[in-house]
C-alpha cells in the first residue's frame, strides 16, 4: 500500500504535527526523512496512510501548522511529490 510522508523542519515540529493528527484519530508516525527529501540534511517527517491524507492536511491547516512538502511513497519505495 502506498503511504505519504509530510516533511517537517525539525523533530519537534514533526512531533507537534503528529500530535494534532492523533488527537483527531489519524494515525501518524514520526520518522526520519529519506535523504532524498531532507533538503537541508537530516530531517524528520510524519508518515500517514493514503486514506488519511486529505483530512490530515485540513486538520493541519486548521491548526496553523503549514505543510511544506508531501511525498507519496510507492510500493517500490520511490518517492513522488504530491501537490494538493
Amino acid at each position, binding site marked *: 500500500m502506498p503511504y505519504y510522508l509530510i516533511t517537517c523542519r*525539525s*523533530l*519537534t*515540529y514533526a*512531533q507537534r504535527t503528529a500530535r494534532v493528527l492523533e488527537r483527531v484519530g489519524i494515525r501518524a508516525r514520526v520518522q*526520519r526523512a529519506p535523504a532524498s527529501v531532507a533538503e*537541508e540534511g537530516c530531517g524528520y517527517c510524519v508518515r500517514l496512510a493514503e486514506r488519511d491524507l486529505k483530512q490530515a492536511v485540513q486538520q493541519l491547516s486548521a491548526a496553523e501548522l503549514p505543510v511544506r512538502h508531501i511525498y507519496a511513497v510507492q510500493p517500490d519505495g520511490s518517492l513522488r511529490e504530491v501537490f494538493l
Partner: protein
Amino acid sequence: MIYLDSAATTLQKPPEVFRAVACAMHRATTPGRGGHRAAQLAAELAFRCREQACQLFGMNDPEQVVFTMNATHALNLAIHSVVRPGDTVIVSGFEHNAVTRPLAALDGVTVRVAQGALFQPRTLLCQMERLLEQGAQAVVCTHVSNVFGYILPMDEIARLCRRAGVPLIVDASQSAGCVPVDMSRWQAAFVAMPGHKGLYGPQGTGLLLCGGPTRPLLFGGTGSHSRESTMPDFLPDRLEAGTHNIPGIAGLLAGLRFVQRVGVERIGAHEQRLIRLMVRRLERIPGVQVFAAPEDSGLQSGVLSLRLRARECEQVAEELGRLGFAVRAGMHCAPAAHRTAGTLDTGTVRLSVSAFTTEQEVLAACRALARMAEK
C-alpha cells in the same frame, strides 16, 4: 536532617522522578539523532516534557519551550536575545546575580533599578512606570525574591511593559511550581526557570519559555538542517545545540506532572501556610528579626529570611546544621535584594519549604531558633 533549603534545590522529590531518571538512563538516548527505538523514546520524553510545560505555564506551542541547564542558562539566553550593547534595562531591586551579572557583562548597558521597599508592591510599580516612561529596551524582573520570598506584582509589571511596548524577561526561579506563571497572560518575551526547585526535577535542568526573537549562545549540532553552517532559525533547535540531558528531562517531566497533579495553588498555599506558622512563632521571640509580609497579604511565598541579634548569619546556619537543620545563610547570590532590604552588611538566614515540608519540621526549626536566641 530537616531540610529547609528548597529555595536552592528541592531535596525531597516525588518517587516517580527518581524512577523516570533511572528508566531514561537505561532506555533512552538523544532526540533528533537517530530513528531507532532508544532515540524515539528520548524524543517522546522531550516532547511530552515540552507539552507538559505548555499546560502548566499557559502556552500552546511546544516548540517555544527550550531546555536549558538551569535558570541561569535560560536567563543568559533571554538577556542575550533581547539586550544589545548600549541599551537601557529596567530591573527590580530584588534581582539575583543570574540577572545582574549577564547585564553587567554587556558593553555599555545602563541598568535602572525600579526601587520599592520589601513587600511594598505599589512603590515598585510607581517606580517601574516612571522608568518605563523615560525609555528602556527591556525589563528583566524576578517573580519572587529568592531571599525574602516577596511575590512581585508580575501581572501589573507585565501590563506596564505591554503598554510601553518593552519586552519583559521574567525570572521565575522561585515561582515556577508554587505561584501561577502564565505566559499567555503576561505576553512576556521570555520566562526562565530551573527544573530542580519547585518543579521537582533533577539538578542540571531548566526551561526557557520563549515569546520573542532569539539569539543562540551555543552553536553546534541540532539534528536538523545539518548541511547548513549556521544554527536553524526555528525553535527549539535554535537554542538547543548538543546532546540533551534526557535523564534530567525525563525527571523534569515527572516533576512537572507531579506539580500539575497536586496543583500550583495547593502547593503554594501549603508553603505559605508553613511560612506564616513560622512567622507567628518567631516574631514573638526577643532577638529574632523576621522579614515577613503582612498577614493575609499574599505577598510571601515559601521563603523566610531572618536574623538573630548579635549572631552572625553564617554562625546561626552552622549551628542549625549541627542540630540537623539544612538552611542557607549569607547573600543568597542576590546582593541587590539585600541592598533594598537593608541587610547587605549582614546577610540573612534563609529557611525555605517545599510541598514535602511538614508542620512538625518547621515547628522544630522554630524551637531550635528560640533556644539559640535565648543564649
